[in-house]
């Protein structure tokens, strides 16, 4: 597995030293609050009224077990014994003392983890397909590219004070597990007619109050030219992006206002002048070194006549959580941390250590994190999946609900977040209680329900089969319902069903929508396929009848 070199580790320590001095100057009154705010966000630190939140990057969502144990140690030593895995391959701690932040970051730097640019108006942690390298039909493993792009934009002198935050995702797989086109910039690995490797580039996507699907600005950028292209895309944004309006800072507004065609023209005009600069070419030697570092640690295994154990709960869990691995004799295993009534993505230090131990025992000491806030064991021998399940079961980490409608994505909502207009987790719990019949859950299949407590859309409700957005109406909590959003096969923003529904009625509405789906489903049709065939009307009629 890829690990930072001594010079990379030194850089992480230098960054911590610098931040420690800035913090000291701030506490001594030599660095004003506004400037310190801008600097600390670039180190992942949010200061709340009563506590401080630190966001630590999990680059491309890949962790080794030493790193996961270090995250567990941080949770015990500096927080209250847990961390929160986010939808963008980060982990957040919520109870950090300012005086301890530098020591905390130094401990993490010793295992190659950091909080650089996990917030603030710069390129954020670059996310990759969590199943990179594992699935059939993949063009290439996205992670070496993520790492090279991450390095390039790490404290980039020109692009560290952009108009707004800048999120990049890279996908090399057939299915889009990264939600590329709702990112500020999405890169899809492709091959051209000549078989050469490159990227299709999408710019200007995003969720929030104005959800937009990113426009394709380049159909094929050769791999070695990607850095110069990204620089041009960011240079136009840096110079022309809106800085005057608090709700229009993101690049999606610039692309919308200029038009995707004009934005692309400006990028191309700039790029023409730099793409042949040898200094800006992607270093192919570094790339091939990284490809070796990220190579899978497994070889094909033949289990002729292998028969898996027969157990009712195991087979249900397996159906929903185990996927085929492209290397024969192996499986991909998904583990959900979601517990009824708790914030999705929360993990205790004890759970982190259990997962690390199990990954050492069954998973080649590697783990991945996903946008559904789950943990993936990327390579498990087929003949050990049952043993892994038994261990997960023992520790309460193998609920058969995973991979069904009950695996709801919800933001912390009004119970924990100052910005929320309504609660999220209690609604998720009520939906889970309504659908507590295992046979029915299995019949429904994998249907996504995402619940955001406000327009910031932390739970990505726009791209779920059923999305709920919390709002206030005359002092009461209401939910706007969107249906048939998706990102896996193509990117579609969900359609608004109609007027928002009160908190009392929202679970009935969700059940109505699911029933319309079941009543109209033909064979194995997915929710979005049924929606495309029958339209919004039957759903509307049932909910608002």
């Amino acid at each position, binding site marked *: 597995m890829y690990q930072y070199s001594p*010079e990379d580790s030194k*850089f992480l320590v*230098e960054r911590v030293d610098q931040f420690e001095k800035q913090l000291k100057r701030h506490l001594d009154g030599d660095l004003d609050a506004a400037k310190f705010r801008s600097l600390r966000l670039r180190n992942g630190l949010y200061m709340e009224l009563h506590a401080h939140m630190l966001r630590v990057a999990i680059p491309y969502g890949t962790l080794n077990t030493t790193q996961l144990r270090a995250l567990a140690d941080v949770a015990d030593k500096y927080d209250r014994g847990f961390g929160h895995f986010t939808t963008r391959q980060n982990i957040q701690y919520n109870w950090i003392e300012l005086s301890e932040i530098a020591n905390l970051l130094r401990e993490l730097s010793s295992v190659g983890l950091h909080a650089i640019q996990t917030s603030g108006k710069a390129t954020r942690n670059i996310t990759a397909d969590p199943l990179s390298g594992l699935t059939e039909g993949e063009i290439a493993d996205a992670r070496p590219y993520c790492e090279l792009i991450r390095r390039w934009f790490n*404290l980039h*002198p020109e*692009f560290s004070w952009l108009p707004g935050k800048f999120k990049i995702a890279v996908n090399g797989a057939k299915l889009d597990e990264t939600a590329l086109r709702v990112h500020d910039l999405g890169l899809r690995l492709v091959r051209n007619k000549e078989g050469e490797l490159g990227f299709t580039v999408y710019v200007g996507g995003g969720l929030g109050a104005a959800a937009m699907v990113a426009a394709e600005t380049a159909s094929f950028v050769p791999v070695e030219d990607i850095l110069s292209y990204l620089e041009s895309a960011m240079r136009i944004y840096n110079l022309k992006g809106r800085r*005057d309006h608090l*709700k229009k800072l993101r690049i999606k507004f610039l692309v919308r206002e200029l038009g995707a065609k004009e934005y692309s023209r400006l990028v191309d005009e700039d790029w023409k002048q730099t793409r042949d600069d040898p200094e800006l070419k992607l270093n192919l030697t570094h790339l091939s070194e990284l490809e070796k570092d990220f190579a899978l640690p497994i070889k094909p295994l033949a289990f002729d006549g292998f028969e898996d154990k027969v157990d009712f709960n195991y087979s249900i869990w397996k159906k929903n959580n185990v996927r085929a691995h492209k290397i024969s004799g192996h499986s991909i295993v998904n583990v959900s941390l979601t517990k009824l009534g708790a914030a999705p993505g929360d993990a205790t230090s004890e759970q982190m250590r259990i997962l690390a131990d199990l990954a050492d025992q069954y998973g080649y000491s590697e783990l991945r994190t996903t946008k559904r806030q789950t943990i993936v064991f990327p390579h498990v021998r087929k003949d050990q999946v049952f043993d892994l399940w038994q261990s997960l079961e023992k520790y309460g980490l193998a609920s058969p609900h995973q991979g069904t409608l009950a695996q709801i994505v919800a933001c*912390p909502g009004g119970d924990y977040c100052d910005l929320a207009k309504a609660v999220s987790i209690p609604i998720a719990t009520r939906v889970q209680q309504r659908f507590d019949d295992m046979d029915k859950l299995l019949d429904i299949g994998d249907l996504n329900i995402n619940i955001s407590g406000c327009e910031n859309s932390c739970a990505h409700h726009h791209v779920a089969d059923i999305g709920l957005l919390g709002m206030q109406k005359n002092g009461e909590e209401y939910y706007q319902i969107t249906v048939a959003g998706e990102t896996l096969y193509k990117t579609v923003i969900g359609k608004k069903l109609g007027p928002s529904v009160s908190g009392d009625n929202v679970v009935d509405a969700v059940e109505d929508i699911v029933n319309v789906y079941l009543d109209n489903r033909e064979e194995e049709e997915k929710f979005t396929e049924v929606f495309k065939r029958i339209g919004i009307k039957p759903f509307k009629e049932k909910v608002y009848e």
Partner: protein
Amino acid sequence: MSESNELEALSATLGAKVAESRPLDTSVLNKDNESIKLVSVEQWIENVNELSKLGVGVIVKPSDDVKLLKDTLNDVALIALDFNNFDDGRGYSQAYLLSKRWKYAEEIIGINAHLDQLQFMLRSGVTSYKLLESYEGFDEHDYTNGFSICYQAAANNSGLKEKF
């Protein structure tokens, strides 16, 4: 759980407005300690024939289109980029264009500069700077050269081990 995005955006917006309504600096000391008169980009474009004989510098605001200077760059005695607004990063792209792309050979001075941004300014192509504010006992070296390595090619990589 996260801090207000609105607050973040609001402070940037207010910052931008304050910066735009602030009177521009009218002169600056160059590296030889001579006082150089500064004119705005508009003034320069309108009166380029007369001004180019006077050895004046041009002050560039973040909102200025620096491309307007491209054709007459060789006549400009000095360029002052205004970094007053901490969160407004347009000056870094302006410095890059002037320095690396158009090879402007005279002094590019970052005025109203902030200590914590010096290393970004210098690597983007700014050649000298005037601090907006300072504090007692600071070590300038900490801010101009805080790292041993750089991960990207920029206008200026001097003193750093390159890894790209």
